[in-house]
């Protein structure tokens, strides 16, 4: 790295940057091609080769990884193009600087690193003083303009590259790597530990499935599902996911419990989900349930995950006017809004600082139902203005948010995708992880 001077411009070696830009472009292009191919291969249900819940889960798991690679691929190509353009402009500046320096040296003029040229001995030659001064002024104009241009270009190009590279988010390794070595299965495979206990609590509005030992768990995650989640198939999905999460945590030496909370009458269609009525009805029951968890295990970290319309339920349960929701962290996934315009409007009953985060999968069309200012259920909780973010207070910038919206549009344009249904099976997401600081918060 170097500061910008006429001499650094003169001697700049541009070929490494050109090569890096080419690599980013070609690798990005390969990722987008590979994503196309992977999506095609995972459409086994279209060919009637594999149909059912397991088929859907497997498609979602494959596609969620490749959709992220696809967005990265397009961003990588854009950075490659940006790099090539940047280098081209540096070379233009270099040509001008080299010509100006050649002239200045021929006339024995002195040049400062910032491009200020003084006539030197030429000014002492009788009859040449004014001309030398004029030439020095002209050369100064050329050189200092080149320095200013390169400084400006450096800052703006770097900013653009940082925004575009935000698609390469941190992926928690524990979320997916190592699953092949972990030990048990919900339905009878060889394992050294007993499968986690699964309890079903029947409430007036729907069942609640509790996986693991709530009394002894160091953290308890309550997952609240969305539209169409009152059917049996939905609870089978979430319960299987919960069992997997508990067993995965066990393999990492952690004792967690996961609750698949279906204790409300979820809207059965998108049309019905426009109303916040089901969420308002469900909110007191969710609050009571969380209060019960806190009373049962006051030391456990309580994490509440609201998925899709479930995030509206969680938002209503945590509304400022209410008594507060017993939770240390709230995570919104694929949210159409949470009935609040900012994270500050959510009331968490916690002794700690509380943490509100929001994320959505690349290409999730739920984003069409909300925006940074307003939406059917309020402002987009993933937007920087909402104030959700990582535990350290960071979130994405507006530029990154808008770039990722562009990537959403690109992914959503791919045929036959249902990324909104992919969250449970996305290996990039660690929904039950707490306090790692590496969750892809506010990311897409």
């Amino acid at each position, binding site marked *: 790295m170097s500061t910008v001077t006429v001499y650094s411009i003169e001697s700049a070696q541009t070929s490494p940057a050109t090569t890096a*830009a080419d690599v980013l472009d070609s690798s990005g292009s390969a990722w987008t091609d590979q994503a196309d191919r*992977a999506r095609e291969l995972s459409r086994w249900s279209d060919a009637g080769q594999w149909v059912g819940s397991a088929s859907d889960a497997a498609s979602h798991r494959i596609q969620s990884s490749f959709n992220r690679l696809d967005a990265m691929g397009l961003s990588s190509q854009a950075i490659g193009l940006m790099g090539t353009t940047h280098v081209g402009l540096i070379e233009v500046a270099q040509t001008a600087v080299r010509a100006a320096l050649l002239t200045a040296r021929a006339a024995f003029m002195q040049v400062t690193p910032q491009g200020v040229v003084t006539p030197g001995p030429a000014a002492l030659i009788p009859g040449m003083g004014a001309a030398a001064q004029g030439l020095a002024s002209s050369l100064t104009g050329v050189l200092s303009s080149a320095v200013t241009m390169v400084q400006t270009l450096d800052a703006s190009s*770097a900013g653009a590259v940082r925004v575009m*590279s935000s698609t390469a*988010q941190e992926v928690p390794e524990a979320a997916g790597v190592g*699953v*092949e070595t972990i030990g048990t299965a919900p339905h009878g495979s060889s394992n050294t530990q007993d499968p986690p206990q699964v309890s079903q609590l029947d409430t007036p509005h729907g069942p609640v499935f509790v996986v693991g030992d709530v009394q002894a768990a160091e953290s308890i995650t309550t997952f609240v599902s969305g539209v169409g989640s009152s059917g049996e198939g939905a609870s089978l999905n979430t319960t299987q996911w919960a069992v997997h999460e508990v067993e995965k945590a066990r393999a990492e030496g952690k004792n967690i419990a996961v609750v698949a909370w279906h204790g409300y009458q979820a809207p059965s269609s998108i049309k019905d989900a426009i109303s916040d009525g089901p969420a308002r009805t469900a909110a007191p029951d969710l609050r009571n349930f969380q209060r019960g968890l806190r009373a049962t295990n006051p030391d456990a970290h309580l994490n509440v995950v609201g998925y899709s319309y479930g995030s509206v339920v969680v938002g209503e349960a945590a509304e400022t006017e209410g008594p507060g929701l017993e939770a240390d962290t709230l995570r919104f996934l694929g949210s159409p809004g949470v009935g609040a315009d900012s994270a500050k409007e959510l009331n968490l009953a916690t002794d700690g600082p509380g943490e509100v985060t929001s994320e959505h999968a690349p290409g999730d069309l739920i984003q069409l139902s909300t925006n940074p200012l307003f939406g059917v259920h309020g402002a987009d909780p993933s937007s920087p203005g909402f104030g959700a973010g990582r535990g350290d207070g960071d979130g994405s910038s507006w530029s990154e948010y808008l770039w990722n919206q562009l990537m959403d549009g690109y992914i959503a344009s791919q045929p036959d995708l249902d990324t909104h249904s992919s969250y449970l099976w996305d290996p990039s997401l660690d929904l039950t992880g707490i306090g790692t600081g590496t969750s892809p918060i506010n990311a897409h």
Partner: protein
Amino acid sequence: MTWGNVLAGLGQMSVQPDAITVRAAELRHVALQAGDSATRVGSAPLSDLPGAMFSQALADACEAFARSGATLSRFAQTTAEDISNYVRTVSQQDSTAAQGMNAGVRQ
């Protein structure tokens, strides 16, 4: 717990193990290629252009893409292997059931 066991827990309505095995093998191959692309990005040369910011941003981008690409590639490879294992189990169960039925018919 392999993620493939989650698939078993979800139950399946219909699966053609041979066809899915072929698809899973190709998916694994594509995932490996994605990992190769990540490696290439990770080994892109560092630049030293005038100015402190662009060269650093380019290097950071290469590092971030390489790391995320490698992780996502591994996720996809593991999932493809889980799918292969799952359909192999289904195939074995079908085969065992068919042998049992044949034995019953012969008796």
